[in-house]
């Protein structure tokens, strides 16, 4: 099963921030591959969603980039800034909390009030 893009959209920022928090620096293709690998291909990040989000994160000062030449082309590595590290923790715990609430809301965990 591959999740719908609506579901991915709301969590993409969190996914990227968390991945960058766990790996020192990553380039775009690497991020998509890593997500695919970690989720056994259940989550596939599209290029059309990944790059706009990366650029928005960069604009917000949460990630910084380092450019490196690979032969003729430039590879841009993305890494978390100081505020990005804090934000990553915030986003992850927010999503975790959200998932708990969703479990309860969707009646998947009726024992808890």
């Amino acid at each position: 099963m591959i999740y719908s893009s609506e579901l991915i959209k709301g969590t993409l920022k969190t996914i990227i921030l968390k991945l960058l928090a766990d790996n020192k620096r990553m380039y775009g293709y690497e991020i998509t591959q890593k997500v695919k690998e970690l989720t056994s291909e259940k989550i596939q990040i599209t290029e059309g969603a990944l790059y706009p989000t990366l650029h928005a994160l960069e604009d917000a000062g949460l990630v910084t980039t380092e450019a490196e030449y690979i032969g003729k082309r430039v590879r841009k590595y993305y890494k978390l800034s100081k505020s990005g590290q804090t934000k990553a923790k915030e986003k992850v715990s927010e999503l975790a909390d959200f998932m708990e609430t969703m479990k309860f809301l969707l009646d998947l965990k009726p024992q808890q009030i």
Partner: protein
Amino acid sequence: MYPLSEEQIDFICRDIQARGVEMESLQQDLLDHVCCIIEQNLEANGNFEEFYFQTIRRFYKNELKEIEEETLFLLTHKNYYAMKKIMLTSGAFSTIVLSAGILFKFMHWPGAGVLIVAGIVLFSLLFLPLLFTLKVREKQEIRDKFILTAGVISAILFSLSTLFKLQHWPGANIMGVSAIGIMILLFLPVYFFTGIRNAETKVNSIVTSILIIAAAGLLMSLVRSPGNSTFINQLDTAYFLRNEQLLQTEQKQLQTLLETRKNAMEIPAKTAQINLLCQELKSYILLKQTGHQTLPADYETKQILLTDNWSRDHFTEGTEGAEKLQELRGLVETYNAENSKTAGFQPVPVKATILDQSEERTLSMLQHLTQIQLQVMQNEQNVLARN
């Protein structure tokens, strides 16, 4: 693993550009991404072009440009919220500051001027332009954009004209009239005729139009017509000149009286000094107001007229006017003290006059300087009559 040649990389790069991706950093991202996919997934003897077009096709729904559009949307969206926040904050802040300024003004507390100016400047140069930039994006139709533009320009001009009026800066009237002109002649017709066509907005449009015309009408009825202003200035100037004439004639007569007496007398030094200073101050005011130290005989044809506006700005601390006025006040005070014992002496008032800077308008300042001259002269006549 497929080894990409430099030509192939150039080819991909050009193709990405040709598909409408203009941001360089996004081009670099996409180029590297496609290259990675090709290198990883295409066999060494595979068909490069075919594989490339299949790969790039997976990046978008309709066209590759979407990625850039989405990026730009996210980037401006962030600004949008920041701008909205600044707009609301500056709007609330400027109105509070302006209201506080007005309260301070009525209570005669210090700082009223600064508050009012800051309030108006923030309102017209930060809040209104931001409001415009944010709202204009929401409007689709050219007509709506026009209504918004005309409305905001008119509002900015109007509030700046109030500021200029308060600060006695030139151009206030032109701005005010342009603001009302734009409002009535450009904004209103388009707004009205757009609004009444739509059943939903019909009543609202009519009511708002009536309110705008009524407000503009009330405002204009407070404004003096330019012709009438000239007429009033002529009257004021003639009035001032008549007083000057009376004063000079009296002074000449007193001089003659003193000189032709059996035991000739001289005007005391202090009186002469006060007189001279008053004359100098009047010249100073005239110079600042009309550009002439004395009004020429043909002042009417040359349109060199006095205007009854504020002259206090020429008497702020450190100006020549303020120094002279201070000197005059000192002279008058010693003059009053020295002569207080003289029978029939009328002291020259200082409190709530030009001397303590209570009077601030051109005409009343000129008027009072003449009155001081007349008073010291009458005191001399009094001495003369008693001897």
